[in-house]
C-alpha cells in the first residue's frame, strides 16, 4: 500500500488538523474566561463603568471564541472511537476515565454556567452573575486538567498493567495518572501558555484602539491587564517549559534529542540555534550552537551527557525489537524552535510594553498620563519614543496577538509528533491504533468535510471577531447599570425586552 494513503496517515492528518484547530480556541477560552471574570469582579467591587464596559466588550469576543471551542471539542471525543477504535479498545480502561470525568465535572460546569452568564444580565444580581463566570473559568481549568492527565498518560504511561489475556491496558492506580510529574508539569505549562495567549489577545486589540485614539479609558485598562498577564504568564511559561523539558529528557529522550537534532550523544551537549540536517545520513550539515546549554536544560548541569537520536534509537531497538523509533526530525526540531521563539517573543514584547507604558515608576511628570489619555511610550525617565516609532510599537503590539497561538500550535505538533512512532509511548504503536473496519474512503470523506467546514467557519469567525473588535466597547444602557436585585429578575415590568437575546 502506498504509504501516503495508509489509514494511519490519513487518520493522523485528520487528528492533527482537527486538534490544532480546536486548540486555537482553547487557550483563549481558558484565559479570557478568567480575565473577563476578573474585570467583572472589578466592576462589582468598584462600580466603575469602564470595568463593566470592558467586561461586556471582552465578554462578547470571548463568546464568539468559546462557541467554536465547544463545537470543535465534540469532534475530539467522537474521533477516538471513529478513527482510532483499536486505540480505544486498548486504552479505554485507563484513558476513558479522565475523559468521563472531564464531561461529568468540567463540561457541565462550563456549559451550564455560560448559559446563565450570557442570558443572566437581567435575571441575576450582579454578584451571582459574576460568580457564574468564575464557575465557567473553573470548568475550563478542570477540563484542561483532565484531558491533559489523559494525554500525559499517552506520553508517559503509569498506574496501569498490561493484561496478557485480553491484550489491554488496565488501570491500577488512578491517583497516579492524575498526579504523575508529567501531568502536573504539562497542566502548569499549558495553563500558563493559555494566559500568554489571552494576555497577547488583549494587548493586541487594546493597542489597535489606542493607536487610533479610540475608547481610551476602557482600552487603557485592558492594555494594562493584558500586559501584566502577558509578562507574568510568559515568565511562568518559561519556568514550566523548563520543568517539562527536564521531565521529557528523562521520560522520552528521543523526543528531546529530536528537538535538538542531536544525532549522537555528547557531554557536554550544546543547544542548537540553527541546524540543517540530512535525516537519512543521521547528521547535520550546518549548525550553530551554544555550548553546554542543552546539558543544562536537561539536567541543570552544564557538562552532563545527553544521549543522541542514534543512541536512543539503538536502545529502543534492543528493548522493543527491530524498527525505526525516530520521529520526524525536522518537524520536531523546528516545531520546538517555533514554539519557544513565538512564545518568548510575545513575552519579550510584553516586558517592553509594560516598561514603555508604565504609569509612574522612573517617569518625569511631563510624561505621566491620566486614565483617559493615551500613554506616552517612555523609554527613559525623560525620553519617549517619537511619533513614528510609537506608531510602529503599537502596530507591533497588534500583531503580537497571534504569536502565542502559533507557539501553542507548534508546541502540540512537537510533543505529539515527537512521540511517534508511538501513540502510547513504549506500549502501543500508532500503526496498531487505527480502526481496522473503517475504509480509506470514509476517512478521506470525513477529513475533507471537516477541513472544508473548519475553513469556512474560520472565515466566519474571524470576520465576526474583526467586526466586534472594530465596533469597540458599547455605551452602557439603563438596564446594564441597574442589574436586578432578585434571582429571576425584578418584577417591575413584565414586558421589558430581555437584556440579551439570541
Amino acid at each position: 500500500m502506498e504509504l501516503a494513503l495508509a489509514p494511519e496517515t490519513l487518520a493522523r492528518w485528520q487528528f492533527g488538523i482537527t486538534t490544532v484547530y480546536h486548540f486555537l480556541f482553547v487557550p483563549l477560552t481558558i484565559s479570557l474566561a478568567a480575565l473577563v471574570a476578573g474585570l467583572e469582579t472589578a466592576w462589582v467591587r468598584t462600580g466603575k463603568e469602564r470595568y463593566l464596559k470592558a467586561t461586556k466588550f471582552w465578554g462578547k469576543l470571548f463568546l464568539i471564541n468559546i462557541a467554536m471551542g465547544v463545537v470543535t471539542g465534540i469532534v475530539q471525543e467522537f474521533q477516538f472511537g471513529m478513527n482510532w477504535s483499536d486505540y480505544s479498545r486498548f486504552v479505554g480502561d485507563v484513558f476513558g476515565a479522565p475523559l468521563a470525568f472531564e464531561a461529568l465535572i468540567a463540561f457541565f460546569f462550563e456549559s451550564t454556567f455560560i448559559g446563565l452568564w450570557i442570558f443572566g444580565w437581567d435575571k441575576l444580581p450582579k454578584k451571582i452573575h459574576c460568580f457564574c463566570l468564575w464557575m465557567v473559568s473553573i470548568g475550563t481549568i478542570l477540563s484542561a486538567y483532565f484531558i491533559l492527565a489523559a494525554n500525559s498518560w499517552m506520553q508517559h504511561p503509569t498506574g496501569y498493567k498490561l493484561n496478557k489475556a485480553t491484550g489491554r491496558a488496565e488501570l491500577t492506580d488512578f491517583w497516579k495518572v492524575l498526579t504523575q510529574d508529567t501531568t502536573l508539569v504539562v497542566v502548569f505549562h499549558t495553563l500558563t501558555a493559555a494566559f500568554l495567549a489571552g494576555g497577547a489577545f488583549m494587548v493586541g486589540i487594546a493597542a489597535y484602539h489606542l493607536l487610533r485614539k479610540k475608547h481610551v479609558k476602557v482600552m487603557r485598562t485592558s492594555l494594562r491587564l493584558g500586559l501584566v498577564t502577558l509578562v507574568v504568564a510568559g515568565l511562568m511559561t518559561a519556568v514550566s517549559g523548563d520543568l517539562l523539558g527536564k521531565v521529557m529528557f528523562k521520560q522520552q529522550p528521543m523526543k528531546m534529542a529530536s528537538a535538538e537534532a542531536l544525532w549522537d550523544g555528547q557531554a557536554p551537549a550544546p543547544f542548537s540555534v540553527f541546524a540543517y540536517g540530512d535525516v537519512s545520513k543521521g547528521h547535520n550539515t550546518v549548525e550553530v550552537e551554544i555550548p553546554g546549554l542543552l546539558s543544562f536544560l536537561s539536567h541543570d548541569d552544564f557538562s552532563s551527557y545527553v544521549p543522541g537520536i542514534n543512541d536512543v534509537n539503538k536502545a529502543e531497538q534492543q528493548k522493543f525489537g527491530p524498527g525505526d523509533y525516530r520521529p520526524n526530525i525536522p518537524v520536531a526540531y523546528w516545531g520546538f524552535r517555533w514554539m519557544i521563539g513565538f512564545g518568548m517573543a510575545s513575552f519579550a514584547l510584553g516586558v517592553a510594553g509594560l516598561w514603555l507604558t508604565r504609569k509612574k515608576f522612573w517617569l518625569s511628570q511631563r510624561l505621566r498620563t491620566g486614565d483617559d489619555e493615551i500613554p506616552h511610550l517612555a523609554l527613559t525617565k525623560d525620553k519617549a519614543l517619537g511619533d513614528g516609532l510609537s506608531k510602529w510599537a503599537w502596530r507591533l503590539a497588534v500583531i503580537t496577538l497571534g504569536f502565542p497561538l502559533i507557539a501553542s500550535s507548534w508546541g502540540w505538533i512537537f510533543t505529539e509528533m515527537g512521540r511517534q512512532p508511538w501513540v502510547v509511548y513504549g506500549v502501543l504503536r500508532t500503526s496498531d491504533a487505527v480502526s481496522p473496519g473503517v475504509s480509506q474512503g470514509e476517512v478521506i470523506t470525513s477529513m475533507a468535510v471537516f477541513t472544508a467546514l473548519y475553513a469556512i467557519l474560520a472565515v466566519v469567525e474571524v470576520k465576526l471577531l474583526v467586526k466586534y473588535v472594530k465596533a469597540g466597547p458599547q455605551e452602557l444602557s439603563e438596564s446594564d447599570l441597574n442589574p436586578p436585585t432578585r434571582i429571576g429578575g425584578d418584577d417591575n415590568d413584565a414586558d421589558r425586552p430581555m437584556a440579551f437575546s439570541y
Partner: protein
Amino acid sequence: MHLHDVWFVLIAFLWVGYFFLEGFDFGIGVLTKLLARDRSERRVLINTIGPVWDGNEVWLISAAGATFAAFPEWYATLFSGFYLPMLLILLCLIVRGVAFEYRHKRDEERWQQNWENAIFWTSLLPPVLWGVVFGNIVGGVKIDADKNYAGSLLDLLNPYAILGGLAMLALFTFHGAVFASLKTVGSIRERARVTASFLGMITMGLGLVFMVWTQIDNGDGKSLVALVVAAVALLAALVANMFGREGWSFAFSGVAIAALVAMLFLTLFPNVMPSSLNESWNLTVSNSSSTPYTLKIMTWCAAIAAPLVMLYQGWTYWVFRKRIGTQHIADAH
C-alpha cells in the same frame, strides 16, 4: 448487581437525560419552520432554549465519555462501525451550536436567513440519525469475531432503523412543541398547542409501530412494561395538551421519552451491541466493560457529580422560568 450492570443503567440514564433535554431543543429547532410565522417568532422559539441548550448537549458528551470509560469495546465498535452517521451527527452539532451563537451577530438578511436554515436542518437530522443508530444497536448489526462492524452503510439504512429515526423525530418535535407552549406567551403559545396535538398523533402512530416491532423482534416482559408506560405517557401528554395543561403535558412527553429509552435498553440487556452474524460475537455488558477498579472510580464520580449537575441545571431552569413572547425580543443585539 455487578458494577457493569450498574454502568449499563447509568449510561441508559445519561441517554434519557440527553433525549429528554436536547429532545426539546431539537424539536424547537424544527419548529422554527413549522410553527414560527416570522423572524421575531423564530427568535422567541430559539430564546426559549437559549440559556440551556449547551448544557443539555453535555449529556451526550457524558454519555459518550462514560461509554468510553465503562465499556471501551462498545464505544470502539459503535463509533467506528457507524462512522458516517456519527460524522453527520457531528457536522450537525457543530453547525447548530455556531448557528445559535452567531445568527444574531450580524444584521444582514442573508446572514440571518442562512443560520436559520442551518438551525432547522441541523435540528431535524440528528433525531433521525440517533433513531437510526439506536434502531441498529437494538436490532443487531454485522459484528465480526474481532468485535468490528463488518457491514456497510446501506446495511444501517434498513426499514426498522429508519422507522426508529422517524419515530424519534416525531417524538422530539412533539416534545419541543409542548415545551414551546409551556415557555411562550401570546399567539405562538396557542398555536404551539395545536401543532403539538397534530404532532402527538403522528408520534403515537410511528412510535407505537416502532415499539411493537421492537417488542416482537427482541422484547421480553420488562420491555413490554416500558412499552406500555411509553404509550400511556404519550396518550396522557396528548390529552393534557388538549386540555391546556402544559406542565403536565411536558412531564408526560418526558416520561414517554424516558420509557422509550428504557425499553430500548431493556431489550438490549445483557447485550450492548448484538451481532447479527453470530450470537457468540455479541458485545455484552461483561465482555466489553472496563475492569472493576475503573468502574468503581467512575461510580464514585457519577454518584457525586450527577446529582450536583441536576441540581445546578435545575436551578438554571428556575432562573429562566418566565415565559417569553415577541415583546421580550429586543431589536438591537
